């Protein structure tokens, strides 16, 4: 039997896998072994797997590239979870891992015939190829989505448990490498509470996997962190910076919302690939990915490696490979110097070293079989015939890009440093600091020192300590300026070969060239047209190469070319994490459970859950009209005004008159804003001389409270106090011809028409509980609205139900109430009115007291009253009595040319069981609406229906029943 893990090396110092134990998982249907500590990618690499995925557009085979969770190449499906970064996800026993974007198989992908795709998918192909005929676009789109899909979403996946946590710190440090740790330690030492975020499983950053430092540096730093006042969050991605130093960060299923007074961005660098022919073949890895494989997981990237570099990191890597016993085919260095300490050993080991040379291409079909290198001139252009080196792996270490995306989202401005071929941020916004390799520091000592200074500056920003002396800052700046260059900006001109700039979206240098030639020559346009940097890596792998290419083609500097805007999230995040828990809080009344027990069908009304009906709304209507019903109206807004200033306030808030209302009396009132638009309505009672009690609509209660508070707190609050009683009182409306008889059984008060007439309020004991009882009538029947302390709500409700038994009492819900009030022609604010409705048009002109010195809406209503309202709210009946037009339908006027002009709309409509016909309320032009009996036309489902204007209540127009 062959070795299942042919490229697993003997134990490496510092590795994080547990070789004493083994787990197994499946990939693409086959079983693979792994050790605890392995990622999916490291385990697959140990088994010699080279192809992890197929590319987005051309379906080319792709293998492990960055090993750092940035690029799209190793995305896999794990169970029902798509787009998992296999280089970051730890292997678990029996994990079911599958490749994405490959059909019928990873090995034989039909779409890769879309090497054919070349011709059919030029840059901007979405915009060019599939546009005509446009009615076919949905079909094109479907086919394209299937061809270019990134994993499969399982619609049956159960709702995950996501939560969030708020964090508060003085200083937040992003990045737990040597500079971040130093910054955190320094700030903590000065007395700051420090939050330290790192996206790795442990702190240490590159010290975990790079061998340029001895392990003691890392252990030393970690020990100090443990003893300092630092909250450490590992495995945590910081997604973005928001206003006032608010950071969004994610760990697993948890979203952190962190606030800090100062932030240190020790975000490190991202190693970036370079452009050469076939630069996407499996077997081409970034140097840092190779070092991670070697030093964290004890895996060789292949059997014969060419190291391509332009800095010391490639030499460090070569030394590691040599020490691990991996065969080195060559070291290719763009630079002409050879001063790395390891060069002597490497030369002695017989490794061919090519200075002043660069990689120009790779060869191979499904994976790398050879590297093509060439000597280069001083401008980086290849000279001579080139040389072919047989190998199965190319390790690229030619450039680093400071990870500044987060700092850009915080308002940092990018400046391209030509001499280092790297971006930097200048100026850095106040209270924010950048440190370590993100700040251009490369040698370990410089990183530590740079972090320390940033931590000190952050603490000084909080005035916890003095800033470091200028001398120290100058010395550090000088040290950083002497740092060796680590990034090559060599870029070849497009020549027709396949060189991928963007791996996520399969964009080549030729595509960039074409896009620019077509006029998309500013970076923001280029991005949108070519989709470069719009894939999963969000530009981490491609944006700097795209900029270099763009500036080379256009013959301008990278700084002049500019860069595209960075926006959060800077790392992909589950939508579930952002959505959080599925919480929809609702308010319920004190007798909610009673409603449920009686089988009420509940509806959401504003924030409240209310019974819509108890099975048969029509029967409920009939019961109120013929016997007696009881409705829970607890959601009504209930406010108490106390103090001698109350009448003044009421006079200003309402369009009505209040000062003349006598004690114990009730009046219907309407509130408008200064535009003269109806805001709310309700009844208001003078309970005694200085106490007023008012109700508002159920859905408008919160808004009305804020509205009244606003005026109270801005000059109209003299000698008056407002109390929100909405939840303190439950409210029930007892309505119907038998309501007096029911209530009489529960109270000693005289309920006779003389002692307690219509539109009065009385303090009354009901079933032994002190209540406020209003005699009012939204339903048009004799009715009593009982406001009872919520703690006794259920008691009084049940007493009423019991007392009403002999009279045939039944509960009724919101739907029956809507029918009952419509039969009386009563409007509902928000249903029959909108943001354009004034009281003059809404049939409430009688309530508008323009003679008052001031009230909200007065000036506007004065203006409207000059010409009268353009539109009126009126009742209507249908010519065909059984037709109920839907609410919201348009009222139209047929024109001579056959077209229909919209002249109004239906705001309420129901079939009235009492009158046995369809009735409603609608808005009409004043001339039509003012004429009872005038006919008009409603447009419903392509038909025209005739209706007639009706003024006043449809039922009991004299109001005899409610005054009985």
């Amino acid at each position, binding site marked *: 039997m062959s070795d299942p893990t042919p490229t697993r090396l003997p134990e490496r110092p510092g590795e994080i896998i547990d070789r004493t134990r083994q787990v197994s998982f499946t990939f693409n249907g086959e079983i693979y072994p792994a050790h605890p500590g392995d990622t999916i990618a490291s385990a697959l690499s140990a088994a010699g797997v080279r192809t992890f995925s197929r590319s987005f557009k051309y379906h080319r085979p792709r293998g492990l590239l960055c090993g750092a969770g940035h690029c799209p190449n190793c995305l896999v499906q794990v169970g029902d979870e798509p787009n998992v970064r296999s280089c970051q996800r730890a292997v678990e026993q029996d994990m079911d891992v599958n490749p994405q974007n490959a059909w019928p198989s990873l090995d034989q992908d039909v779409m890769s015939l879309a090497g054919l795709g070349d011709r059919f998918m030029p840059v901007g192909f979405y915009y060019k190829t599939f546009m005509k005929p446009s009615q076919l676009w949905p079909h094109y789109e479907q086919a394209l989505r299937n061809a270019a899909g990134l994993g499969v979403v399982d619609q049956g996946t159960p709702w995950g448990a996501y939560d969030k946590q708020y964090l508060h710190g003085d200083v937040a440090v992003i990045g737990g490498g040597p500079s971040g740790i130093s910054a955190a330690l320094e700030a903590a030492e000065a007395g700051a509470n420090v939050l330290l975020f790192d996206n790795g499983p442990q702190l240490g950053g590159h010290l975990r996997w790079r061998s340029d430092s001895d392990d003691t540096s890392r252990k030393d730093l970690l020990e100090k962190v443990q003893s300092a006042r630092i909250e450490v969050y590992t495995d945590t991605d910081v997604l973005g910076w928001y*206003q006032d130093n608010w950071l969004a960060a994610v760990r697993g299923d948890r979203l952190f919302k962190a606030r800090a007074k100062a932030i240190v961005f020790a975000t490190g660098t991202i190693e970036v690939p370079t452009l050469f022919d076939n630069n996407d073949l499996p077997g081409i890895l970034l140097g840092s990915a190779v070092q991670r494989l070697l030093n964290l997981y004890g895996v060789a990237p292949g059997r014969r490696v060419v190291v391509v570099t332009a800095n010391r990191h490639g030499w460090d890597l070569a030394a590691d490979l040599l020490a691990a016993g991996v065969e080195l085919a060559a070291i290719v260095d763009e630079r002409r110097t050879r001063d790395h300490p390891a060069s002597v050993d490497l030369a002695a080991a017989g490794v061919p070293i090519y200075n002043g040379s660069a990689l120009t291409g790779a060869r191979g079909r499904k994976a790398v079989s050879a590297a093509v290198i060439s000597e280069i001139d001083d401008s980086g252009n290849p000279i001579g015939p080139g040389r072919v080196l047989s190998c199965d792996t190319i390790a690229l270490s030619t450039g680093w890009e400071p990870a500044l995306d987060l700092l850009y989202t915080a308002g940092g401005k990018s400046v391209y440093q030509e001499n280092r071929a790297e971006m930097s941020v200048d100026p850095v916004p106040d209270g924010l600091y950048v440190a370590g390799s993100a700040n251009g520091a490369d040698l370990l000592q410089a990183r530590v020192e740079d972090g320390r200074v940033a931590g000190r500056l952050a603490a000084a920003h909080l005035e916890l300590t003095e800033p470091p002396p200028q001398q120290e800052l100058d010395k550090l700046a000088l040290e950083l300026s002497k740092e060796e260059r680590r990034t090559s900006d060599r870029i070849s001109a497009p020549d027709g070969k396949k060189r991928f700039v963007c791996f996520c979206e399969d964009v080549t240098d030729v595509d960039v060239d074409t896009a620019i030639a077509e006029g998309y020559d500013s970076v923001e346009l280029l991005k949108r047209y070519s989709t470069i940097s719009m894939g999963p890596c969000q530009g981490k792998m491609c944006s700097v190469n795209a900029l270099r290419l763009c500036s080379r083609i256009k013959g301008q500097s990278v700084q002049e070319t500019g860069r595209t805007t960075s926006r959060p999230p800077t790392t992909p995040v589950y939508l579930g994490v952002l959505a959080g828990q599925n919480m929809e809080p609702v308010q319920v009344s004190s007798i909610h459970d009673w409603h449920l027990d009686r089988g009420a069908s509940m509806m959401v009304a504003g924030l409240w859950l209310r019974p819509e009906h108890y099975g048969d709304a029509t029967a409920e209507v009939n019961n109120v009209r013929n016997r007696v019903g009881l409705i829970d109206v607890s959601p009504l807004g209930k406010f108490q005004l106390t103090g001698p200033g109350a009448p003044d306030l009421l006079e200003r808030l309402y369009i009505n008159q209040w000062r003349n209302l006598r004690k114990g009396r009730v009046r219907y009132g309407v509130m408008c804003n200064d535009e003269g638009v109806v805001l709310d309505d309700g009844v208001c009672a003078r309970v005694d001389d200085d106490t007023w009690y008012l109700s508002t609509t159920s859905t408008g209660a919160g808004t009305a409270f*804020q509205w009244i508070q606003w005026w109270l*707190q*801005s000059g109209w609050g003299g000698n008056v106090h407002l109390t929100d009683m909405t939840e303190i009182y439950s409210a029930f409306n007892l309505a119907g011809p038998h309501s007096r008889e029911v209530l009489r059984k529960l109270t000693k008060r005289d309920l006779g028409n003389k002692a307690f007439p219509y539109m009065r309020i009385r303090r009354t004991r009901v079933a032994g509980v002190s209540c406020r009882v209003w005699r009012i009538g939204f339903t048009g029947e004799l009715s009593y609205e009982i406001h009872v302390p919520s703690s006794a709500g259920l008691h009084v409700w049940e007493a009423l139900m019991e007392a009403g038994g002999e009279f045939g009492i039944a509960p009724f819900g919101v739907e029956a109430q809507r029918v009952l009030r419509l039969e009386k022609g009563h409007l509902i604010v928000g249903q029959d009115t909108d943001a354009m409705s004034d009281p003059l048009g809404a049939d409430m002109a009688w309530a508008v007291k323009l003679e008052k010195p001031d009230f909200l809406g007065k*000036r506007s209503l004065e203006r409207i009253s000059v010409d009268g309202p353009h539109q009126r709210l009126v009742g209507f009946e249908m010519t065909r009595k059984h037709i109920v037009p839907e609410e919201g339908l348009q009222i139209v006027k047929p024109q001579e040319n056959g077209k229909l002009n919209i002249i109004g709309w239906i705001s309420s409509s129901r079939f009235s069981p009492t009158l046995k016909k369809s009735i409603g309320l609608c808005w009409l032009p004043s001339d039509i609406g003012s004429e009872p009996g005038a006919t008009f036309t409603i447009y419903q489902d392509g038909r025209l229906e005739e209706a007639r204007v009706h003024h006043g209540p449809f039922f009991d127009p004299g109001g005899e029943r409610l005054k009985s």
Partner: protein
Amino acid sequence: MLVVPCPNCGPRNASEFRYAGEYRPRPHPSQDVTDDEWATYLYTRSNTLGVHTEWWFHTSGCGLWFLAERHTKTNAFVKSYLWGAT
């Protein structure tokens, strides 16, 4: 997220507040207010680039209506205070 300085509660997250727009003194309707003046009060906003005065309500907090002076570009608050104070 923006931090809003409540004169009662101190700095709190903006999600606790209702923003109610630019402060506009209300002309008294009993005086002669022309249609233009009234329409300006109702519908015209200065749309200042710089510091302007605006209304906030501490909805999920103390229930205070207050005025704040904020720079409309940088979001920096200059101060916040109760109506009638400055």
